[in-house]
């Protein structure tokens, strides 16, 4: 039985400043799948993820979601000067499973912020995870934890779209490859 489609792009063209970055891109992402978005700098990888989030409208084509979207971009989404526990309570509904004490978000490590971001996506029950350079600034253990989170998410019927210059580590065995070119 074919897994259900969670995300569908049909003839999507994205432009920035009038210059097309992505032209007539079409693909479907199904439950359990991982899409790996590759391309040189400036090819529109981050723009593509932001368009899937709905922050940028395509100049042509359609993007259809059949599940909610969770996004981990270059920014964590947590306000730096805020107390970490306050942000955790707002976004996750409770304290994460690591010690944040009386720290501000800016005092957390990059790994801790990304773990909170992943827990936010899980808490929101996002079906489609969009991850932009998720391995950046993470040590090996944090990278392994991230891989486990993504695998667990896909095993439960979710899907992930990942931009990564570092490859997908253990996730790329059956990944759908989306290759973007510089225009």
């Amino acid at each position: 039985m074919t897994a259900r489609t969670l995300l569908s792009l049909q003839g999507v063209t994205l432009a920035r400043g009038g210059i097309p970055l992505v032209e007539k891109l079409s693909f479907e992402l199904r439950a359990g799948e991982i899409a790996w978005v590759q391309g040189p700098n400036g090819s529109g990888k981050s723009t593509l993820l932001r368009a899937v989030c709905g922050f940028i409208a395509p100049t042509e084509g359609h993007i259809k979601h059949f599940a909610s979207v969770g996004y981990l971009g270059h920014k964590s989404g947590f306000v730096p000067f805020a107390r970490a526990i306050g942000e955790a309570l707002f976004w996750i509904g409770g304290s994460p499973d690591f010690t944040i004490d009386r720290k501000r978000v800016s005092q957390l490590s990059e790994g801790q912020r990304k773990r909170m971001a992943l827990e936010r996506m899980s808490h929101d029950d996002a079906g489609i995870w969009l991850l932009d350079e998720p391995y950046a600034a993470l040590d090996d253990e944090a990278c392994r934890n991230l891989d486990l989170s993504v695998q667990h998410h896909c095993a439960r019927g979710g899907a992930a779209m990942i931009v990564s210059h570092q490859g997908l580590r253990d996730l790329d065995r059956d990944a759908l490859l989306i290759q973007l070119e510089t225009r």
Partner: protein
Amino acid sequence: MIELIKRDIRLAWDQGTALWVAAAVFVMICSLLAIGLGGSAVVLSAAAPAIVWAALSVSALIALTSGFTTDMESGALDQLRLRGHTLWEIALARIVASFCTVLLPLTLAGMIVAEIFAVEGNEKLRLAVSLVVGGPALSSYGVLSGAILATSGRGGLLGILFTLPFIIPVVIFGEAAVGETGALMSSSPLQALLGISLVAVVISAVASAAALGVNGE
């Protein structure tokens, strides 16, 4: 909406500096104007409503006009949108929270200044009511300015210059409402001020949403 307002109040508390900066500017402006007017009790008592209104307007805008920069730079705005909040909800919540965390404390400071400048009882009441009624307008314009300037990283003076044409009528009607005689709520300037505040809240929420949408692309 309540969730967003509580979040904004929490963040304002966590940051703390915006209100302290606004309070410091407020005190400086009141002090300098009092010194410039010669310090006469009679003169200060008569001029106090105008001094308070001018000082409160400038200090509130300094605190408010960089409001969305952090949300934009941290990616929090994106996450709020993904959670299903519309931009106008986010803007409206920010207007309400800003009124609670900046305008109301500055109104309290204004009443302390009125007390120090020996403003009479009835006039003090009118001043308090005019500040509360006009506060939403100042909050709205400050938030709108912050939304437009969100990606420039520069609030402060640029935000005040941008917002100045909008706040002048607020200050004019606010100060005029203090000098009225007769029943408080039937005062024409106060009713005009209420109308300005209501319109400002609606228009600023919608316009802020549009500005945040453009800045977020």
